[in-house]
């Protein structure tokens, strides 16, 4: 397929595409975190889903379908010529769980954003990643007007293992979001080392 004129193009290295998931409850700051560290304005695509209504068994299957779209926002960080890191926020609506499955597949790890005004909204994310043995860190996103809880209080409420980092963050601040990601990847490396030597 190589032709004379295609040789004039410099051959670029094709990078490894890896991903980190940014999860958390509705409005916890997922999109904000992705935007603050991404090198590009977050990209967006959507997934279509057919939503079948309940109670149509008598009709012999799915009779009543509507199509719903799920927005998927993601950012990108070029690590080197060989590696590009993608950051995917989980869809805001909880019912789109199937997207979580695919997002988590092959991910390096996950950041779970905890909003202390409604900490319970991240419980399902904690459950989800624990069950899949996908390493995660908890980033406590401090909103104005929210009671300031200590790391220990959050850790206790979330009931996460002592090895899971719980860090304070401000998703709007690039450096803060970067620190969260650094914490996550360090944690992933520590977990791997523990697994290899244990």
């Amino acid at each position, binding site marked *: 397929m190589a032709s004379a004129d295609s040789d004039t193009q410099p051959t670029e290295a094709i990078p490894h595409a890896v991903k980190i998931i940014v999860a958390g409850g509705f409005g916890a700051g997922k999109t904000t975190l992705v935007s603050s560290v991404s090198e590009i304005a977050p990209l967006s*695509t959507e997934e279509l889903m057919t939503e079948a209504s309940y109670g149509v068994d008598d009709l012999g299957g799915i009779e009543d379908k509507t199509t719903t779209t799920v927005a998927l926002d993601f950012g990108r960080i070029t690590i080197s010529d060989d590696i590009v890191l993608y950051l995917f926020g989980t869809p805001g609506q909880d019912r789109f769980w199937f997207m979580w499955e695919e997002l988590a597949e092959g991910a390096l790890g996950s950041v779970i954003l905890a909003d202390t005004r409604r900490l319970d909204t991240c419980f399902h994310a904690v459950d989800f990643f624990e069950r899949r043995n996908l390493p995660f860190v908890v980033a406590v996103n401090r909103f104005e007007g929210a009671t300031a809880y200590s790391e220990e209080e959050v850790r206790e409420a979330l*009931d996460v293992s002592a090895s899971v980092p719980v860090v304070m963050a401000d998703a709007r601040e690039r450096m803060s979001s970067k620190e969260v990601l650094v914490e996550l990847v360090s944690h992933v490396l520590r977990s791997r080392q523990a697994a290899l030597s244990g």
Partner: protein
Amino acid sequence: MSAERHRRHDRNEPGHDREFPQILGAHEDEEERFLRPYAVDAGVAGPDAAGPRGRRGAEQLEMLSLVVAARTPGRHEWLRPERETILMHAQRARTVVELAAEVRLPLGQVRAIAGEMLADGSLQHCGPTRPLGHSDILHAVLVGLRSL
């Protein structure tokens, strides 16, 4: 802090988990409620989606699968603008999810069309130029993030 997570594991607790039962493993019910058109119909979501072309041989692509155009857009595309657009955007290697964002089509649709285009040779899969192990990648990502 009133809520504590371990309560969520008590599946008999009234009213608990209404919003997110599936994460705790109750997948069956939900699968009846939400069907992904492209997964279900092997790439055909309806008349305005990929259409019934080239279903056989279409492969399921991951979001981060890398594809590259194997040729430039030609006369084959004159009635298939979405293919032409995909070919133009894939002149350099692209992940499927980025391609979807760039061509402004739903991910599932791009997956389906790209799968057909792989099957008919318009697109090619590509792997990373330099092989790297998982550890190498993690270390490099850590260094890269630290220097942001």
